């Protein structure tokens, strides 16, 4: 009988995935190793099929709408693809705190300050849920954060746009969180169990984010002429970048096809974008604002809106580092990370002290 092992060394680097013929004696030893490993986190699983059989079983499981769980065998590319997508998602939650955090001290009322603070706190929590779920794939949070800080990992490009006015805080909640929710609702059905469960938790918390943003927009749009102008300006600047959040057209998307087969993604970029366009149009209408897309038109035949083309040059330019805030976002993350080092060190020293005194007692 053949056994495939995927092993992680203590620092969790994937140091081997091997197939070997095992005797019964080896099997017993490896069962023990597995159990010890469950404690020490060294070997994550033991499998009793060949790689090709495993791959077939894996895809069958996915085709039958069953979730993949951390200790299941999975193709290396599935694991890598998930790490890329999930860590990017986590980074987006964390970097997303910056444009909104920018307005906490300047929120127009105590109530608005409390609401914004609660929202930013939620984003930190969402980042945490996602980092933890990603860690079940055998990568550490420290590695992911390093990848973010060195630019190897990306985050949602939308956060490279500045929040210049209070209207922008409304537009971010309404449009940016709205677009994120479209995507996340779909991801509640993703094939990786920990990711799907994280999404369910996040979606529950997220609808407050969108609604508080829309309420800001209602107040501004139905306020003084200056306020209405501010709302229109924020809508104009955030509408198109929100559409870009769904990624390139399906025909241009590098990871889409494989991700759909593996059911990491459940709906394509273009389908999700269409949903968002359709649901946003009546919301803009209610606000009494002008729609930023002059080509937007209801298509009776499709029962969808037809829309104007996105400026893809802008999309790629921002992704490739030339947005307004790319450098600032990472610099700020580094600064916050480094300035917080003493807190982490103090907590560790305190734990060490407590451990020593309880040993002495």
């Amino acid at each position, binding site marked *: 009988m053949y056994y495939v092992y995927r092993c992680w060394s203590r620092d969790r680097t994937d140091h081997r995935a091997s197939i070997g013929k095992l005797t019964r004696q080896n099997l017993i030893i490896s069962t023990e190793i597995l159990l010890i490993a469950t404690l020490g986190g060294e070997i994550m699983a033991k499998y009793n099929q060949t790689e090709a059989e495993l791959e077939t079983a894996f895809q069958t499981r996915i085709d039958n709408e*069953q*979730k993949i*769980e951390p200790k299941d065998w999975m193709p290396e590319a599935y694991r890598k693809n998930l790490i890329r997508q999930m860590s990017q998602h986590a980074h987006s939650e964390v970097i997303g705190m910056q444009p909104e955090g920018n307005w906490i001290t300047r929120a127009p009322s105590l*109530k608005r300050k*409390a609401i914004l603070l609660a929202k930013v706190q939620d984003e930190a929590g969402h980042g945490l849920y996602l980092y933890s779920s990603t860690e079940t794939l055998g990568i550490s949070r420290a590695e992911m954060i390093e990848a973010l800080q060195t630019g190897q990992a990306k985050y949602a490009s939308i956060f490279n746009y500045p929040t210049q006015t209070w209207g922008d805080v409304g537009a971010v909640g309404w449009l940016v969180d*709205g677009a994120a929710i479209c995507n996340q609702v779909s991801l509640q059905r993703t094939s990786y169990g920990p990711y799907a469960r994280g999404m369910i938790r996040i979606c529950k918390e997220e609808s407050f984010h969108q*609604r508080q943003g*829309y309420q800001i927009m209602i107040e501004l749009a139905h306020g003084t002429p200056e306020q209405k102008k501010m709302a229109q300006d924020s809508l104009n600047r955030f509408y198109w970048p929100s559409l870009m959040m769904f990624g390139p057209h399906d025909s241009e998307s590098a990871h889409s096809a494989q991700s759909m087969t593996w059911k990491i993604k459940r709906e394509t970029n273009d389908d999700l974008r269409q949903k968002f366009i359709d649901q946003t149009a009546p919301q803009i209408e209610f606000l009494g604002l002008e729609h930023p897309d002059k080509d937007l038109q209801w298509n009776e035949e499709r029962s969808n809106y037809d829309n104007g083309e996105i400026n893809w040059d802008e999309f790629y330019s921002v992704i490739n580092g030339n947005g307004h805030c790319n450098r600032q976002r990472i610099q700020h993350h580094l600064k916050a990370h480094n300035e917080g080092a003493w807190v982490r060190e103090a907590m560790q020293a305190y734990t060490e002290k407590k451990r020593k005194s309880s040993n002495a007692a």
Partner: protein
Amino acid sequence: MAIEKLELFEIFIRSKRGLDHKHAGSLHAEDHEQALKYARDVYTRRSEGVSIWVTRTADICASQEDDSECFFDPSDNKPYRHATYYPLPKAVDNM
């Protein structure tokens, strides 16, 4: 009389793929490995689970029911954390 040197373990069971592990109960065992086997025999005789987690009861750090008022209190006076705090106009029926 035999002296029992067993420890208490807490058992968590995933009833179906895609669901969280849920606390099922506890049992006495010599170590983690035995706890896992006993849990299989005690808690999953009727296919109640596809995965089991065990942990020493002593390793669980729990909040105190008596302290819950001051432990959880801060979130009680923040109704604005709920979506229902923001009424939606009729024209925009869901969000």
